[in-house]
């Protein structure tokens, strides 16, 4: 069975510093990996995804994520945090090949990012 974990409920970072939001996953085959962001009082938005190819994926708002197969991780990163990056971040995973009709994307529990001015 597939699963996804976000080991940190809360991440605090000073404005201008690099940020990392962690995600680890478990699938039996190859993963499709996604990051979504939920800004306060706004809907969920897609940030970026890894399907295949280059392990470093670039997405919206200057975010990027690195797929690490050996560590089964897909951490979200940004070189210089902005106060406006403060939001709830969700990692999601799906198996490449659907084995049953009930296979679907699984979301992690979310990490709250606070960027301090």
């Amino acid at each position, binding site marked *: 069975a597939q699963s996804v974990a976000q080991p940190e409920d809360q991440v605090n970072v000073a404005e201008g510093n690099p940020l990392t939001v962690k995600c680890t996953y478990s699938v039996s085959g190859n993963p*499709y990996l*996604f990051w979504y962001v939920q800004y306060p009082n706004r809907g969920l938005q*897609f940030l970026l995804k890894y399907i295949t190819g280059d392990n470093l994926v670039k997405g919206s708002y200057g975010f990027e994520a690195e797929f690490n197969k050996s560590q089964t991780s897909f951490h979200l990163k940004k070189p210089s945090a902005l106060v406006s990056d403060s939001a709830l971040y*969700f990692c999601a995973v799906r198996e490449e090949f659907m084995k049953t009709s009930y296979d679907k994307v699984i979301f992690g529990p979310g990490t709250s990012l606070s960027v301090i001015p």
Partner: protein
Amino acid sequence: GAGVSQSPSNKVTEKGKDVELRCDPISGHTALYWYRQRLGQGLEFLIYFQGNSAPDKSGLPSDRFSAERTGESVSTLTIQRTQQEDSAVYLCASSLDDLYEQYFGPGTRLTVT
């Protein structure tokens, strides 16, 4: 183009009443998901429709919850005999199919008094 829309945006209902929440997915998206999100919490999967396959209802919390989808278009989530613990934001999302990213609607905020 038009995104995922949900209606109503807000619903206040009395305990014990039935409510219907509507989701209009992006045209051409075969996959449709319903989630529940309590304040400050993560996404709780409710139900998933993929094309003409039988829906995955494994996340529905009780038999008071049901959902339908008309072909590959509009979906309705129905909650019967609402309880206070049903109060939450109900999110709908659609995707081209489940290999692709999901596009979320703005949600319906349900308050049961």
